[in-house]
């Protein structure tokens, strides 16, 4: 009997799920996209590059910041614009804020109820009021970083090619540091709660892909690396990873030259670079007791908790650097508009986000390509759904459906991003 979910709740965007089962054999599993096409890459063509971050960030309401940052990175490469250290630091803080609030939303409000067998988050919040308060405050720190630096939490305003239209005051940075310190304690307490949550055991050897850079937990830039020995410069990304459009499908899945499906996101980053985490995150990871390499996709949720701790720590560190610098240096300076192509990649909450843009002589966009994390891990998710489902023969269909929802949500798919 087939397993069908008409509409998966608690994910970003709209999708259903269908697994074909014949005589107990799971033949296939597929996420059925129920999103319309917005053609963002298409509508950008012929428009001025300055509109690109404004339009592209509207691909996603949960991770607009990373679309803003990555499109600007690609544009600045195309136009050969150099920006100040202060600009880069402010942008990194926007990204840390992005990861903190997106992970916070997912691990608590979208995924947690699955592991506690609760069907409605209102019940969850009533049963765990202290934890709810903590996650809301943690998310608020992430949102505040973006609001103070970016001007608004959803669809930020200040960041543009060349720098910032407006920069925060030193007083605002000091306030953020204070708030960051409070948030770190809360994150550690919530981490303690999460370490006691039981998740299903399941394992399948996987290729984990993310950015990699000497000496740091790479998020904002780096080469493309994987646990199977891949190490290529960003400029070669599209030589190794190919978008495939299957008939009738509106998500262009990404295939790796290494063969087979692969995974991106928190679990990939932690597997590939956990030795570069900051001390408190590293200590917390050790206490979780997971062994590496870790191929259990359900652990993605716990690794998001590790990353929240890491990025709160990292925010405090970076804010402390900024407090002693001249933020005016981050204001946009004049630059020359010229013809060129550029690529950018940043680790979004859900994995590597890639942008390529070709800009013409007068600054109008000639071509754009956007490759999102969910388009990259979709095949991996479906492959694992087949295997996991095959390991659950003695459950009722309803129970199987529930397990599938739990698995899908652990991946934290963003269908809006994947279709764009």
């Amino acid at each position, binding site marked *: 009997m087939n397993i069908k979910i008409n509409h998966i709740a608690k994910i970003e965007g709209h999708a259903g799920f269908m697994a074909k089962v014949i005589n107990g054999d799971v033949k296939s599993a597929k996420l059925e996209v*129920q999103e319309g096409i917005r053609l963002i890459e298409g509508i950008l063509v012929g428009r001025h590059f300055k509109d690109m971050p404004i339009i592209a960030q509207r691909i996603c*309401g949960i991770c607009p910041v990373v679309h803003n940052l990555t499109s600007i990175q690609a544009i600045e490469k195309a136009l050969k614009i150099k920006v100040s250290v202060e600009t880069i630091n402010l942008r990194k803080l926007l990204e840390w804020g992005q990861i903190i609030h997106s992970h916070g939303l997912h691990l608590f409000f979208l995924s947690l109820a699955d592991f506690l067998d609760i069907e409605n988050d209102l019940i969850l919040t009533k049963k765990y009021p202290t934890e709810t308060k903590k996650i809301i405050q943690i998310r608020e720190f992430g949102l505040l970083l973006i609001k103070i630096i970016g001007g608004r939490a959803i669809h930020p305003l200040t960041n543009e090619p060349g720098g910032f239209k407006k920069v925060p005051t030193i007083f605002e940075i000091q306030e953020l540091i204070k708030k960051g310190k409070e948030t770190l304690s809360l994150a550690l307490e919530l981490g303690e709660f999460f370490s006691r949550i039981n998740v299903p055991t399941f394992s399948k050897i996987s290729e984990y892909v993310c950015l990699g850079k000497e000496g740091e937990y790479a998020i904002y830039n780096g080469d493309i690396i994987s646990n199977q020995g891949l190490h290529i410069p960003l400029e070669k990304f599209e030589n190794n990873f190919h978008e495939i459009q299957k008939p009738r499908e509106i998500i262009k899945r990404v295939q790796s030259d290494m063969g087979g499906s692969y995974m991106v996101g928190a679990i990939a980053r932690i597997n590939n670079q956990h030795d570069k985490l900051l001390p408190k995150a590293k200590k917390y990871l050790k206490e979780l007791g997971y062994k590496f390499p870790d191929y259990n996709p359900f652990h993605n949720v716990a690794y998001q908790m590790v990353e929240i701790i890491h990025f709160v720590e990292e925010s405090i560190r970076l804010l402390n650097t900024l407090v002693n610098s001249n933020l005016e240096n981050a204001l946009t300076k004049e630059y020359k508009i010229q013809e060129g192509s550029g690529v950018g990649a940043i680790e979004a909450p859900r994995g590597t986000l890639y942008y390529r843009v070709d800009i013409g002589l007068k600054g109008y966009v000639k071509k754009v390509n956007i490759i999102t994390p969910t388009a990259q891990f979709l095949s991996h998710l479906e492959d694992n759904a087949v295997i996991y489902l095959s390991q659950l023969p003695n459950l009722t269909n309803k129970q199987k459906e529930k397990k599938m929802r739990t698995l899908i949500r652990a991946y934290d798919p963003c269908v809006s991003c994947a279709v764009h």
Partner: protein
Amino acid sequence: MKSKLKLKLKLKPKIAIVSLTSCEGCQFTLFDLGEKFLDLMNKVNMVDFRLFEDEKDKGGKLDIGIVEGSPLTKENIKTLLKLRKRSKLLVVLGNCAAMGGVPEIKNYQQGKATIKQVYKHIQKISNPEIREVNNFVKVDFVFPGCPISGEEFLKYFPELLAGNIPTIPDQSVCIECRKKGNACLLLECKPCFGPIILGGCDAVCPTSRMGCQGCRGLRPSGNINTIHCVLKNMMTNQEFEDATEIYGLRDDL
């Protein structure tokens, strides 16, 4: 005790929040209100909000149906029609639902050029024109913006709960912008649609030194041609037209 609880639940207004094709940023704006949003959730009987629950919507009448996004797919349109049918008041969130949003830029481009930039195989992919929600159903109230303002939602939602349709005052973005003590971008020769656009956003864009691009739509007494005259010496006609496309203002040109 149980029947008392049931009675209380019955008295709470029934609400559903539904999203069509969109970035879902308007829903997340509500969600990001944190404790204030949870308080609100406890004051109503939330029948359907898929960011929050796996439970199936049991159907039945609603006091307020809330919808964001573009009715793009057949399924989207069906969802919208159904929501209208069961709701006393239909409230739309944000620029996509109200004015077409950024996906509407496609409508101003040539035929299949846009989709061909994205897909190799375009057969069997549904690619309709973008049409605002009010082309399909009657809309009772719009929370404007891209995304909506969470504070504005908190301000007017109680009125809607009481069954009244609020009116957003006919004031330009400039009123709030001046109150914030911002230097006027227009005086610096930086394009800004502020004078003709409906205020209520706390002038969030000009406060970040980003010119207003009109995501909240024209104010009732706003005229796009007057601003065109003002902006003529700051941008070319092409640039002006492009700017009005971003949030669907061009329909009013």
